[in-house]
């Protein structure tokens, strides 16, 4: 059961995330959200490339693993938090 939920979550989470961004784009300020979306995508590609470089040229995996985990967690939290804040403030403005 847990595995099934996990399996669905893996497919659902990106769709939900994209849906939220899409909602934000069409609902308030198109250019602002497009800019933010582009920024996040570029940041994501850059981060992936950087992490790939780290894994490729590092002689020990144990040192870089915690750094990668901390980096992805913190930056992911910033992105998710900002999106949540955008949604909340959008609703609060309507209210």
């Amino acid at each position: 059961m847990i595995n099934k939920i996990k399996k669905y979550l893996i497919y659902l989470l990106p769709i939900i995330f994209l849906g939220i961004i899409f909602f934000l784009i069409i609902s308030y300020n198109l250019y602002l959200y497009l800019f933010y979306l582009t920024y996040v995508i570029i940041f994501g590609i850059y981060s992936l490339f950087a992490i790939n470089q780290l894994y490729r040229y590092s002689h020990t995996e144990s040192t870089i693993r915690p750094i990668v985990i901390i980096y992805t967690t913190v930056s992911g939290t910033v992105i998710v938090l900002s999106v949540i804040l955008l949604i909340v403030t959008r609703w609060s403005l309507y209210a």
Partner: protein
Amino acid sequence: MLSKGAYYDEQQSDEKIIHFIRRHPLSMGSWIVSIISLVVALIIPFVIFQEDIIKGIFISKNIHYIIVTIACYLLLIFAVSLTSWINYYLDVIVITSNHLVNIKNIGLFRREVSEQNLARVQDVSSKMNGFWQTLFRYGTVYVETAGEAPNFIMENVPRPYKIANTIMKLHESIINNNSQITQEIFVKKQNNNLINKKVNNNNKNINKNSINNSKINQPVANLTNTSKNNKSLIINENTLINLGKSQDFKKNKYSQEGELQEGQEIKF
């Protein structure tokens, strides 16, 4: 990921790692200061104006702009800090038993690997320049190499005197080993030449004696073909026989009757 146990791409299996050096952390001072100042620049307004700003942000109609700006700013700080850390972490100097390897990572898209054979090192010097380098014992090591190869410069390495000393010792040990090997090869060659000369002289003597023997004692010379491990022995002035320890002579059509008989054992 590099192959298991390898410290750089072209490392040979029999190479021993003597030193694995990263730059001194203080050499990243400019990066650390810039990252800290970026963070402080974000925090300072909140600390000074405190509640007014926080309330103002949430009341403001431009809150979306503020959220996106702060998020972009934070992501930028993360990206800069990750890049600077990668530059520090992947910049390494490896001193092996045979080579000197300097790996430089400049940004994310430039990587330079220079490798030098320790046997080609000519001169090593080190330098600690300025207040911080003297205080925290880090500096630059210059390695001059023979030929047209560019000189090796290791910047911001901790304890440069020690590293320079190690490089010089390794170079001397390699040179000593090489000279020993060349000496051994030279001695072996000389020995081989001497042996060859002796063998040639012996062959000449044997040929001379065998010619004399064939003239003197023809049947005995024929009998020498029966032995596999021949040894040349001079019996007397007139006879030379190539035989083993002892030999049973069978009757041969070439043997002279009266001198050699069937089943007769002759020991030398």
